């Protein structure tokens, strides 16, 4: 059997959408190849380890509606690469992990093996602090040539990937659905950019729709592709924590950005630190962990100097990455409401503050007030 022929069978098998993708490869091996699986009758399928009657029915149903040649043609015509586990292009790091995917579907390129790779993950519903940190770490890491992997979700995922691309870096998204589906749809622009400067990966066939049950499994690919996991912001019980568990099982180092202990969005992070994860305060901290010989040529980060008047300076110093209301700022600064408003608008124009909710402002950029 030549390679293309085998590929067609493998593609059929990889497109089987199972809730436990880890077993896909195991089953293929125990059957002695996907061609056999395709040809076995029901009896034989059930006799295989790990195949229930229902699973066997699924397989039979799937292959009845499947035209091997036409489907493979279609996949190629859509510009989607299928990389089975034995392919030389299959990412080495991922291959070393337990339960790695049977095959990867890919739009764009695959993460290069000779460059460091950091997975940045965190809450979808993140705070302005999380937003700021994701942006800062991802763009700094990308500046050092590090690849950023994440899940292209709302919040931290998307923000960090966008920041990496903006910094001229590479980024890869692992989806919980077929690679030709942009999920969430609002990240369409990011999705298109990722195809250009990185890639969009998935272990699911192109017909797989996004579904909550598929997301935990894709998280193991995110951590599997990376050397280090960076948790930006996470609630105590969240999908992010599932990824952390998987990363630990895979032997990945987990680094965490600490937050305030009263902030529910940082409870997960702080708990991880308590349990022994490494707190990091800058991208350089991560670089040292990746490479002991890392030579930081930007040791002292110089903050940009911005001219502010007395009131603006006072208000700026009170602003935080957490939203504060006008009334609150007026009280804390002892300034007249009118002056606070004028200062905030001026700070907004200078790009130092932004309105996140009506009447609520956050600090968006660090600077040295002069």
């Amino acid at each position: 059997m030549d390679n293309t022929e085998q590929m067609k069978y493998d593609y059929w098998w990889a497109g089987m959408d199972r809730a436990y993708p880890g077993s896909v490869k195991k089953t293929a091996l125990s059957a002695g190849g996907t061609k056999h699986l395709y040809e076995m009758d029901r009896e034989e399928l059930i006799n295989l380890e790990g195949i229930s009657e229902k699973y066997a029915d699924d397989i039979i149903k799937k292959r009845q509606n499947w035209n091997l040649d036409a489907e493979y043609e279609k996949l190629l015509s859509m510009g989607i690469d299928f990389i089975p586990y034995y392919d030389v292009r299959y990412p080495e790091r991922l291959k070393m992990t337990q339960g790695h995917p049977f095959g990867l579907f890919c739009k764009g390129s695959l993460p290069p093996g000779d460059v460091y790779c950091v997975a940045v993950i965190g809450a979808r519903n993140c705070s302005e602090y999380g937003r700021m940190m994701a942006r800062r770490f991802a763009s700094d890491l990308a500046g050092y040539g590090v690849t950023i992997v994440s899940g292209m979700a709302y919040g931290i995922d998307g923000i960090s990937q966008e920041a990496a691309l903006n910094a001229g870096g590479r980024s890869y998204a692992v989806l919980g659905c077929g690679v030709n589906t942009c999920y969430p749809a609002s990240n369409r622009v990011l999705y298109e950019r990722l195809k250009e400067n990185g890639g969009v990966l998935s272990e699911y066939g192109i017909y797989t729709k996004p579904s909550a049950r598929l997301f935990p499994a894709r998280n193991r690919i995110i951590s599997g592709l990376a050397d280090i996991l960076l948790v930006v912001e996470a609630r105590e019980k969240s999908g992010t924590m599932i990824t952390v568990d998987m990363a630990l099982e895979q032997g990945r180092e987990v680094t965490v950005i600490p937050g305030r202990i009263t902030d529910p969005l940082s409870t997960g992070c702080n708990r991880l630190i308590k349990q022994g994860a490494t707190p990091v305060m800058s991208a350089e901290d991560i670089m040292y962990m990746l490479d002991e010989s890392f030579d930081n040529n930007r040791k002292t980060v110089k903050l940009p100097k911005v001219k502010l008047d007395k009131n603006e300076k006072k208000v700026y110093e009170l602003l935080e990455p957490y939203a504060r209301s006008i009334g609150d700022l007026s009280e804390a600064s002892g300034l007249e409401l009118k002056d606070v408003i004028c200062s905030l608008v001026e700070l907004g124009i200078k790009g130092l503050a932004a309105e996140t909710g009506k009447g609520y402002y956050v600090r968006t950029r660090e600077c040295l007030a002069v």
Partner: protein
Amino acid sequence: MLSSVLSFGIHGIEGFCVKVEADISDGMPMFELVGYLSGEVREARERVRTALKNKGFTFPVKRITVNLSPGNIRKQGTGYDLPMAVAILSAMGEIRQEIPGDTIILGELMLNGDVTGINGILPMVIKARSMGIKRCIIPYENRDEGAMADDVEIIGVHDIREIALYLNGEYEIEPYKGVRSGSDEETSYNACDLKYVKGQKVARRGLEIAASGMHNMLMVGAPGAGKSMLAKCIPTILPPLTKEEALEVSSIYSVAGLLKSSKRLMRERPFVSPHHTVTDVAMTGGGVYPRPGNISLAHRGVLFLDEMAEFSRYTLEVLRQPLEDRSITVARNQGTYVFPADFMLVGAMNPCPCGAYPDLSKCTCTEPQRKRYLNRLSRPLLDRMDICVDVERLSYECMLDDALSESSADVRKRVMEAHERQKIRFEGSGILFNSQMGAEETGRFCRMSDDIRKWFMDALERLDISARSYNKILKVARTIADIAGSDEIEREHLKEAMFLNNSYII
């Protein structure tokens, strides 16, 4: 024998004269009503016959024809009962005197012959006065409403016998002068006054600016923060209605049947707050014989939409045209009706479905949920809201503070001064307030130094504010300058206007 009397009907909120003719002749006994009548007018036949009988008149066993002229306008309402009865009595010879041509008669009859009140008395009396009518005979119940229009004799009658005696000159009824006690200054304000509003400095300032330029306004804030209370205070800081405005507003309420309990013209600006389940027809006005809707009831006052995001999208979209035209045209197969609708739109909504955003430790909504919630207000509608303020939930400290804030009366003084400045500026230009300025007017009236204009353009670019918002900010800045008594727009006015812009939501 033939006789006729004058009466009035209502078309939209405008009265029109109706001549009621009655003819009694020999022939088969019957009682016929003609004149393009709707159901309730046709039912008058039974009411008139029975009422006359019960007041001791002998209903003639003859052929009776009653006509309501002009015959090409549909007549509706129950106000024609009394004029019909009077016309028949006159034709019967029971009323011997000729009924003068400068008198109109309005009223509904009960079976026992008593006269009961009808809707729309005020606009009919006003219209009649303008047509040279000297005397209006109306139901006793409606006499306060009729007396709101000056310079016309109002005769309130109780029953059909009384009016017959009166018209025969056998009984005097003193023309009613209305309640004249109490000056115009005395206004019956409810408990709403800004002095009871604690804290909320930003919102109070927003309210003052909105009232000064008649800008539409959106309030965003957590549930229970006091958005409704603030909104209810708006009529107390707007100038009281002028005499003409009061007649106009009272007329609308009269047609809607909401004026019966009041003794005087409405002097306070209306505050209308429909529930969010309201339909688009209830909002604009409508029905088979269109009646004014919520937006017309809010004419010259405030239309407050609480929980604005919960209103059906369609109901909100119908507001767009009246916000531009300051009136609403309702077309039905009976005709086309124009209702005035010059109101200030005030909306209130939560910042997110749960109401806690941006406090992320409490807010349980996801980003898409929040977006979807804010998107319920369409862009074109938001473009018509010049001011957006946030209403903060009060701290307990602030709530327990007994000190009173600045009162509505004090704020109203500043608002009236700002209105005065606008009146002088816009003299002869067809607009009254800053909010009504179009692109051309903003160019003409929003003066500022070149220096400031350059700074402003630069700021808009940096803040990524759309060109659409440019005009809105200028209009609000103009109002802020008016409050400050400045002829030119200064930098700080622009800054405050930018802060009040709703670009965060759009």
